[in-house]
């Protein structure tokens, strides 16, 4: 067992224990139906969190993702319902706009040499404002393509359903993990997060990598916006407010170091599932109010940050001693 896998293991163990405790209390939670819904209900969050993992691995942060989800949802809904576009062309346009948007943020972060959070904060205002300028109402989507997609379901024994968007999230996670751990771009991202100065001295194309990371994050957020519109069959400018916080929480709980340079895409998946578990548990319980979700997520976030500090303090001392 390599030492670097310890935080990932810790997350997985905590998820297993939490799930086991939940199942002990509510045996009905151990069913393919609940597991299938885990994937469907958290699909947009998971896809966003993959992009956020790359951003955080590179040592940055992206606060604009929730706003990009809202903007994409509204744009797609308006193009389909009002302008009569085919959903696929609307999706293509939304993804291209997001790519340009993320690219510009990446350029600003690199060339203006300002902290990522302030640039992406401006991006968040811009995207949320843009969405509200297009429309302030919830725009419903009625299109046969949407009906067709919602019927693409793999039925599991025990009443479970694997929906298209749930499977799409799993696919994004697999591709994300391969890109992060098996490609040159992935190692550039890790190098940049570890230490930008030494990365650039080693010949890592810092500018290109930074721009690519934020482009990726925005494109995945737009994909999440499309998934969100498939999930709700509507576009609303105030949709997905605060999702950036959930995505960051999922990444941190998944064991990725917020200073960058260390973490796993798979860990983020467990982080998303853990957040989903908290929500499902609160729904099953019925007596707990929804605000407990926020408190529990905050507590989990704190727990994992402290855990990371302890593990890394211990391993740093071990290296010094040896």
């Amino acid at each position, binding site marked *: 067992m390599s030492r670097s896998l310890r935080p990932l293991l810790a997350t997985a163990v905590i998820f297993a224990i939490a799930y086991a405790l939940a199942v002990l209390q509510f045996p009905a939670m151990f069913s393919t139906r609940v597991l299938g819904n885990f994937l469907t209900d958290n699909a947009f969050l998971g896809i966003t969190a993959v992009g956020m993992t790359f951003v955080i691995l590179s040592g940055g942060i992206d606060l604009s993702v929730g706003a990009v989800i809202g903007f994409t949802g509204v744009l797609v809904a308006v193009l389909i319902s009002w302008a009569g576009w085919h959903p696929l062309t609307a999706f293509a346009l939304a993804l291209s706009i997001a790519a340009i948007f993320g690219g510009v943020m990446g350029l600003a972060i690199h060339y203006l040499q300002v902290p990522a959070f302030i640039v992406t*904060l401006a991006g968040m205002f811009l995207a949320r404002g843009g969405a509200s300028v297009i429309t302030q109402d919830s725009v419903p989507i009625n299109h046969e393509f949407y009906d067709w997609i919602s019927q693409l379901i793999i039925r599991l024994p025990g009443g479970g359903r694997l929906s298209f968007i749930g499977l799409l999230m799993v696919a994004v996670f697999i591709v994300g993990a391969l890109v992060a751990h098996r490609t040159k771009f992935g190692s550039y991202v890790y190098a940049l997060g570890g230490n930008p100065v030494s990365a650039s001295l080693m010949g890592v194309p810092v500018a290109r990598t930074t721009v690519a990371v934020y482009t990726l994050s925005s494109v995945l957020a737009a994909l999440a916006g499309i998934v969100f519109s498939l999930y709700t069959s509507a576009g609303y400018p105030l949709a997905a407010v605060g999702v950036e916080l959930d995505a960051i929480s999922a990444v941190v709980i998944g064991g990725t170091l917020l200073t960058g340079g260390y973490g796993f895409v798979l860990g983020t998946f467990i982080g998303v599932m853990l957040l989903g578990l908290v929500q499902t548990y609160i729904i099953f319980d019925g007596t707990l109010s929804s605000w407990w979700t926020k408190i529990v997520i905050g507590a989990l976030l704190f727990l994992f940050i402290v855990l990371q500090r302890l593990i890394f303090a211990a391993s740093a001392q071990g290296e010094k001693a040896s």
Partner: protein
Amino acid sequence: MMRRILTRLANPQLLALVGVLLVNWLLFPNFFRITWQDGRLFGSLIDVLNRGAPVAILAIGMVGVIATKGVDLSVGAVMAMAGAVAATMVVAGYPAPVAVAAALAVGLVCGLWNGFLVAVLDIQPIVATLVLMVAGRGIAQLITEGFIVTFTDPLLIFIGTGSFLGLPMAAVIALVLMILVTLLVRRTAIGLFIEAVGVNRAAASLAGIRSRMLLFLVYGLSGLCAAVAGLIVAGDIRGADANNAGLWLELDAILAVVIGGTSLLGGRFSVPLAVVGALIIQAMNTGILVSGFPPEFNLIVKAALIFLVLIIQSPLASRIVPVRTSAREARS
């Protein structure tokens, strides 16, 4: 003497504020008209002061945090918690001064908690304060049990909507806080120490500055300011709304500080200019409202403003136009 005051007044932030106010005046000719009614002043200008006060107060606390190269994302949630505590306590029958003191104590404790995470556990400020940003609003809802707790207590309402010498109470509180904090950081060595920690914490510690104490101080002050702002917002609507009180105000506060010329890379800050930054934001809000644009335009204008300030502040711009030696250049 007169000349010195004039040169100090001719800085970009004040000029920008005057510019925004003039644009408002062009759009809305009655903008500068101030009337005296029921023992207090009325007018759009007074409204800017009144509405801008919560963000100004948050910015006063945020300046110190950002000067140490940190950021406090939790202030909006702390506002909601402070309002919730004060409202629930007066409704439960506690005397109002006790409720106010308890709310301020909650803010201070939240700030010290952030300070503990940053100074002792050495966690990045964005993440450390994110914990409270996520959990704080949940705790506020727990305190109010999910309801909007309304109250009729005269003291709390006075904090939010009262007036002192004709000026709105919120603006008076902001002014007093600004003067106190400015005196604290500029008439003692604390301001210098904060800048030293912001430039290089390790070096500052080696030079004998107790950087841990300082971090506790700046985060504690930020929490306290957030509690004051929370009391004002709660008093203004005569109720504590755990969901919406202070929502996204942390971002406005950061923006105000950045507009005020405080460097996000630490080491250079100004409390009064951050307050001017908050007034610029509010003057723009008011301008957009009186000129009949939908309020959503606000967000786009704010985004454009951030980019503008960032470009002006960036090393790239100072290479092209050598305006003045900033702290960053003086260091290198």
